[in-house]
């Protein structure tokens, strides 16, 4: 298809607008507090990496970063693993209540975390998981599992049914077929799904902070703590904010080609 210069200009303008707030965050993270609150500076006049070193050398922050990464990874693995067979079932078979079940799964994406935070606290306290990475990982399954089923179902729809039938004729058992033949075929879908699960678990904090106290304090909770200690430590907050973008950026870099290859969406 013929493409002019227009798309490039529009894209460049959009990317510039998109990057401005992020640039501002980086800018803030390099300026001392007094400088931030006293004037507007388009770039840091006396850049300092002091707060970055502070965070990277403070065991509380480092531990919290590890905690966040751990529950996000546990959640991503659980979500994708349990969603795969379910998405296959929804795409390939009709069974009693399938459509209702599918929509019920989606309704779990519609429960506002702000409302259910307290009941969640009661539940995880009662089962003895409170203040562990497992509490957060399991709680995030509430929205990530349905989302994973939804996205994977679309990708599975793009794989022709004949492949299932050919494998059955060749004498493959279902588990062997699913793992050896089917999973490699939807590798793109798994990559994209894992990215979305990672993302939504990483950015969610209301449940993460409600379900933890000291041992499994997530990164975001340590950030909110730094509000109160000495007024607003904007530089520290901004530096921590910049660091929270790093894991996500790494993950998206790995799945960029999968996204570019696209969803082979079967049905909704």
């Amino acid at each position, binding site marked *: 298809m013929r493409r002019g210069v227009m798309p490039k200009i529009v894209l460049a303008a*959009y990317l510039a607008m998109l990057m401005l707030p992020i640039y501002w965050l980086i800018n803030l993270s390099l300026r001392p507090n007094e400088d931030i609150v006293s004037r507007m500076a388009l770039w840091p006049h006396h850049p300092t990496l002091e707060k970055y070193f502070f965070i990277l050398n403070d065991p509380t922050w480092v531990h919290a970063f590890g905690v966040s990464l751990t529950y996000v990874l546990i959640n991503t693995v659980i979500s994708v693993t349990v969603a795969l*067979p379910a998405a296959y079932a929804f795409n*390939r078979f009709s069974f*009693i209540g399938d459509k209702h079940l599918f929509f019920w799964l989606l309704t779990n994406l519609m429960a506002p975390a702000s*409302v259910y935070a307290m*009941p969640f606290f009661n539940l995880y306290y009662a089962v003895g998981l409170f203040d562990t990475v497992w509490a957060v990982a399991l709680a995030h399954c509430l929205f990530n599992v349905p989302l994973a089923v939804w996205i994977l179902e679309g990708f599975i729809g793009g794989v022709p049914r004949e492949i299932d039938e050919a494998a059955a004729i060749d004498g493959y058992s279902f588990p062997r077929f699913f793992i050896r033949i089917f999973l490699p075929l939807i590798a793109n879908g798994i990559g994209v799904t894992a990215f979305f699960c990672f993302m939504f678990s990483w950015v969610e904090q209301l449940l993460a902070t409600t379900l933890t106290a000291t041992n499994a304090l997530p990164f975001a909770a340590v950030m909110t703590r730094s509000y109160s200690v000495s007024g607003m430590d904007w530089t520290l907050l901004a530096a921590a904010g910049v660091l929270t973008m790093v894991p996500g950026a790494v993950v998206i870099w790995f799945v960029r080609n999968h996204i570019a290859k696209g*969803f082979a969406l079967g049905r909704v």
Partner: protein
Amino acid sequence: MIEKPINNRAWLLVLPVLAFVLFSALLPMMTVVNYSLQDSMGANNFFWNGDAWFRDVLNPSTDIGARFFDALIRNLSFSFAALLIEVPLGIAIALCLPRSGWAVGPCLVLIALPMLIPWNVVGTIWQIFARADIGLFGAAINGLGIPYNDTQDPVAAWITIVIIDVWHWTPLVILLSYAGLRAIPDAFYQAARIDAASRWAVFVNIELPKLQKVLVIAVLLRFMQTFMIYTEPFVVTGGGPGSATTFLSIDLVKIALGQVDLGNAAAMSLIYNLITITLCWIFYTIMTQLDRRRDA
């Protein structure tokens, strides 16, 4: 469309999902249902209160009812405004992205970045970024001669929240649309070229129909998220000034934790949840029906 074989053993494949979701969904939901039907005299003494809380919330002449309907309208207009901007903008940018080449990777990473920032950090960025004295955005708007102050002016606050949401979540629409566009085989474009179809005709007849499925995901997800928005207004405006950005979930937390009025809050959240589900169901049904009709 080929009929799917009926096989009730498929339930076995769905069971793990059911177990994980039910574990976190069932008990918290029942707790809320409990609160909505009982009243408390303090100290965990609960007694049956029937549908009184629900009648309160749904009656606009009561204090709580008026608050509920105000917040509901605020929420609906916010979701509508956000979707109206994000969906067309997202599709347009997806069309502008290069189809191949070295630039694809870096572009996708840059576009995805806003989504990967934890929500309270997003709030923190904009809290400063939108300030008229020390923030670039606020200063720039004021520099253009438009008086702007998101902590004093209700309209500015509301618009700021919309802009934050557009900044934060248009990338989701872009990524999904881009993935959908990449799934269109080249043969379609070649056919269009042979027919000397205009750019607009290609978009309407080839690209838009092929995008429908990803757009259902994008629109539903965006609707749910905008309708449940909490963290950004909480951090940036605190629901104010006045109640300009007090969306339903913010109001709920105020009622439940601020006033410890659990009965009203629980009834309100169930009604709120039901409204979200109903709206999504209507939309979902319309979109899937359209799809079926085209396949038939």
